[in-house]
């Protein structure tokens, strides 16, 4: 609720108000479902306290209802597709520091809620884990595909939050299925991957949002197509942003790789599990799906880094007058999460004890994580990677860069003078991929057709709609809007009428109370 006001900091813009409205509606729906979940808990256990871990039988109808309510309620909070509609616009329109908090902490409350409620159950059927796992795959894939199509830097990052929530859910689903399969390795690796990814996502996503804030402030626009060549102007932002980009794509040698590695090993363990049945099929499909998600995320961040920091700016004039500089405080703030990304990438061992404790709290299994995960080898090879890189850089620098190095223009296919229009833009980079996924990406194209012999100034605009928001939510809301008009008459604005409602309500409660006592 408080975040609603934070979100409305820049409330003079219409998009911000829209995003705020959508957010507040969905938060209330979310709260409604969580209250229902609480009520179901009360029905099962007879107490409003949190039930003890492992006290609710999951294989009953009530258990399943509670599971569904929790998944929907906290799913809205976490931004699982198709419950995510509030997330992109809210993240994109909030001030960047607020987006960092939202993405780093708030949507994790949803994940926390799901894990917390799941720990109340015992006798969990296999298909629960598989359901969560499939929700994870769908969120991860759809999130990243939508991300790639965005023009707005912060909206892109917001869709990546959905993708990462999907990866976290894949881990949780895997762990849950492992409990049903009685396979400790899968339980441990699934939950450890999910929990570590929660932490990692908080670090690199806050870093990305803060970096995006700096970029937007510097270049005066949110559109990636109008940016370019910032690497030389904002060096610290560039390096930290690059580190976070590599992490979020799940590539070594940073922390995103470590948590995805956990989940991968967990999924590969299913291969060696003795009985592979229809439900395991989905988990095996998780491996190529996660690989595809990784590839798409990498493509997306090549696009972001390539068009924002490299090449040439489309707005050279504006940037010349820009006086914004990286202060020491800014460098420090961006540096902290970057250092955490690097550190966990080299020494994942530092997360071993917290992860073991967390897994013990969820599943009450006491384990040594080093039995399942190659901590030493990872550290060794990542260090080797840094070492050889430093060596290669040293040799290259001393042998070649010291010699005369000529600097000239980029080869322009014969054109000697190139301008920023020659640079590849974000939209054109993404075009090959958005075309592939056109079945879920509905592109709206606005353009001015050329009709005369001497064409006037023309324009061309593309916009990717959120299929879930515009295809499911808005039509159903409009339907409600049209058909429940009669309820609106109740809210007449007349105080006398309201007092009457209250009186009626009190009388009804008294009658109900008498009925109960009787």
């Amino acid at each position, binding site marked *: 609720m408080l975040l609603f006001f934070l979100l409305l900091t820049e409330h003079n813009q219409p998009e911000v108000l829209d995003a705020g409205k959508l957010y507040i509606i969905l938060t209330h729906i979310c709260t409604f479902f969580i209250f229902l979940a609480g009520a179901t808990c009360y029905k099962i256990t007879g107490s409003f306290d949190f039930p003890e871990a492992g006290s609710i039988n999951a294989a009953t109808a009530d258990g399943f209802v509670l599971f569904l309510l929790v998944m929907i309620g906290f799913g809205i909070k976490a931004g699982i597709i198709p419950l995510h509609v509030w997330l992109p616009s809210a993240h994109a329109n909030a001030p960047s520091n607020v987006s960092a908090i939202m993405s780093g902490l708030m949507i994790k409350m949803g994940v926390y809620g799901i894990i917390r409620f799941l720990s109340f159950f015992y006798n969990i059927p296999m298909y629960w884990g598989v359901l969560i796992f499939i929700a994870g795959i769908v969120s991860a894939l759809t999130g990243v595909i939508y991300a790639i199509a965005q023009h707005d830097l912060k909206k892109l990052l917001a869709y990546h939050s959905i993708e990462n929530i999907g990866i976290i859910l894949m881990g949780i689903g895997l762990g849950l299925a492992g409990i049903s399969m009685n396979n400790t390795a899968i339980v441990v690796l699934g939950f450890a991957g999910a929990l570590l990814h929660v932490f990692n996502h908080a670090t690199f996503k806050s870093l990305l949002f803060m970096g995006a804030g700096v970029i937007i402030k510097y270049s005066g626009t949110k559109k990636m197509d109008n940016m370019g060549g910032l690497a030389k102007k904002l060096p610290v932002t560039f390096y930290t942003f690059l580190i976070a980009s590599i992490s979020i794509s799940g*590539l070594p040698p940073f922390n995103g790789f470590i948590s995805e590695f956990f989940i991968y090993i967990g999924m590969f363990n299913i291969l060696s599990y003795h009985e592979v049945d229809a439900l395991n099929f989905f988990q095996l499909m998780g491996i*190529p799906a996660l690989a595809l998600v990784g590839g798409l995320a990498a493509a997306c961040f090549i696009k972001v880094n*390539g068009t924002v920091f490299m*090449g040439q700016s489309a707005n050279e004039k504006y940037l010349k007058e820009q006086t914004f500089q990286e202060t020491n405080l800014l460098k420090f703030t961006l540096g902290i999460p970057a250092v955490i990304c690097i550190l966990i990438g080299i020494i994942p061992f530092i997360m071993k004890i917290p992860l073991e404790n967390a897994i013990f709290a969820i599943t009450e299994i006491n384990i040594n994580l080093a039995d399942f995960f190659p901590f030493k080898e990872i550290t060794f090879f990542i260090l080797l990677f840094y070492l050889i890189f430093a060596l290669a850089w040293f040799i290259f620098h001393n042998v070649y860069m010291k010699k005369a190095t000529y600097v000239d223009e980029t080869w322009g296919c014969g054109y000697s003078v190139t301008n920023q229009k020659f640079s590849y833009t974000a939209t054109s980079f993404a*075009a090959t991929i958005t075309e592939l996924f056109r079945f879920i990406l509905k592109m709206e194209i606005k353009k001015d057709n050329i009709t005369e012999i001497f064409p006037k100034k023309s324009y061309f605009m593309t916009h990717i709609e959120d299929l879930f928001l515009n295809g499911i939510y808005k039509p159903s809301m409009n339907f409600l809007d049209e058909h429940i008009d009669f309820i609106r008459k109740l809210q007449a604005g007349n105080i006398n009428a309201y007092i009457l409602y209250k009186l009626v309500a009190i009388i009804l409660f008294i009658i109900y109370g008498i009925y109960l006592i009787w």
Partner: protein
Amino acid sequence: MVKILSLFTILTAPVFIFSTIVKVKAFFAGRKGVPFFQPYYDLIKLFRKNIILSRKTSIIFIIGTLITLLSSFFVLLFIPIVDKDTFFFFKGDVIFVAYMLALGRFFMCLAAMDTGSSFEGMGAAREATFSMLSEPALFLSLMGIIGKSETISFAEGIANLSPSTWINNGIGFILIAVAFFIIILVENSRIPFDDPNTHLELTMIHEMMVLDHSGPLLGIMEISGLIKLFAFISILSHIIIPFSFENLIIDFLVYYFSLFVIAVSIAFVESSMARIKLRKIPTFQIIVVVFAGIGMFLSLG
């Protein structure tokens, strides 16, 4: 002894494979072809040159190129070379290798974007798209190879392969081998997916990204390309020949011969096919994913 032979293979086989492909293609075209050791001369020539940099590039242009080389070097540490032997292995190195390749590609594309050229941007976009699509197929076929081994490493997965796996799950392994062969063609930008010789921006993918690399930087790109081709072919050769003769020399010769056969078949495909349309490549890749997926499930038995 095995390690020395492996090291020897690493130094010679990449150029051997490349030159075999070039020679066979020249034979099909009725030409004589360049000398067998030409790649070495080219590399020496490139490394003696100076660098020309674009004014727009940042330091990423050089870092990216170096990391591309580094990633292919790390792949060599874990793939089986002579006699199913790997230099190192650890739990999950299959994933590590696949992600190292992805890291190399990430930086190669970034280095291309760094020049601000529209050609290189186009190349990077295409490379990112097509490699993204071949990732699931790669992982599916790796799953088939690794199978039920506990350690999820190339060393154990390949060591577990034996003639009996072929006899029991032959169809699955044939599908995986075919899928893997096509993955080699896609990942290493061979015809029919990409043409390593053309410099026409409408058709090419990989070559477009190295337009602004000069001298030693171009040499590094060529080396990492050669190593990558070798690494993939080496894995395929171990899928096809899952047995050992218990004699190191014979094994070594058989291994080299299998590399030769695969190189010839790549050259044969390149000579007998035209490039497929750029827009058709994704369709083709999805078929490969299906192949690899079915093969994987059949091979699990």
